[in-house]
């Protein structure tokens, strides 16, 4: 059984490495978020491997890391949603001619 956890431990490390590579090289914000999520997923998976190895007291895996990972996934989702909303708003401000007008210019126009 320890072979399986070794395998998934390697998988988790691979995910983290791939995620860091993408995060440091990509220039599009949305793809950076995806890469960052890859890193997070790899870290969660390491928790899962540790939990599986720490099976005790009649459980097949330690439930405490599982609960922490669930909380982590929820928080990561919340952060992703907020960042995506920020990116969309920023993109909107950069492209929309109406929004792009500086506040002073808008005042002059109305005056």
């Amino acid at each position, binding site marked *: 059984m320890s*072979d399986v*956890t*070794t*395998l*998934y*431990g390697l*998988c*988790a*490390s691979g*995910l*983290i*490495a*791939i*995620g*860091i*590579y*993408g995060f*440091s*090289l*990509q*220039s*599009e914000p949305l*793809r950076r978020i*995806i*890469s960052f999520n*890859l890193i997070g997923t790899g870290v*969660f*998976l*390491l928790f*899962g491997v*540790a939990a599986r*190895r*720490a099976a*005790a*007291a*009649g459980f*097949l895996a*330690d*439930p*405490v890391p*599982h*609960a922490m*990972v*669930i*909380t982590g*996934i*929820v*928080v990561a989702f*919340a*952060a*992703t*949603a*907020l960042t*995506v*909303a920020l*990116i*969309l708003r920023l993109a909107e401000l*950069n*492209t929309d001619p109406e*929004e792009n007008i500086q506040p002073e210019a808008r005042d002059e126009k109305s005056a």
Partner: protein
Amino acid sequence: MSMLPDLLLVMLVLGAALWTVAARDRRSSVIGFIALGLLLALVWMRLYAVDVALTEAAVGGGATGLLLLRACARLDSIDAGKPSAGRTLQLLIGFCCAAMGVGIAAAALGGPDLPPTLAPAVAANIDAVGLGNPVTVVLLAYRAIDTLLEKIVLIAALVGVWSLAPDDVWGGPPASLKLAKASEPLTFLAQILPPVGFVIGVYLIWNGADEPGGTFQGGTVLAAMWLLVMLAGLAEPPETRRALLQYLVVFGPAVFLISGFSGFWLAEGFLSYPTGFAKTMIVALEVALALSIAVIVAMMLAGPSARTPR
């Protein structure tokens, strides 16, 4: 023989991750990420973490997928960004990342032979609380403070998303999710599937007390069904200024906080439950929390208030 599926699964997961990073266009990368989320559900099942598998499927395959895909569709009119780094730098960074991966693997796998475990402590709590699912016991009794703060993070993120609305439409409805062209099969799907999905969501919430499942998984399924109805154009997202919506958002966490404080005079202290009533209180809390989570997740995916297209 029993290792073969695991080996294949790891290869598939790493392949999907590589695709996500290396894909030419943004949309292919997002689809690779959705596929990765669904594959990870299988990985979690192999690690005997079915609760996490359900969460990963609901969030990675459902919620994050729709979020990123909608962002793709709206970012189409914007440039693809600056050209990436030169070949040498790419190789250098790749080498560094590979070295880092090896280091993490060595650190993670070279742990002590008998790793520390909190399982006995949880087992003791299970008897006190009377629930069958150890993960729910950890989430709502043993480490309830984490779960409470997680809900507050969710509300804070939703406030953050809503606050990005332009000034002149403050409090108005988010952009319509309706697809540009009407589609009969989609309308049919959105009429038949939500009742089924609603039952499955409620089942996951209810089941979470004793078997894998729980509030976030069930709540996300409920949110997905609401979003499906909105995508088909059978309903429009509500105005963010509506009082009912805002009460629903804070309802679950508020009930959680009140029950937490009630622990001071009903039980031993903050977030503890009176003996004998623990299970009843936890199930009631789960229902309240799932309702709020469904609304929060759906509204987060719908985005901030937006101007209606002219």
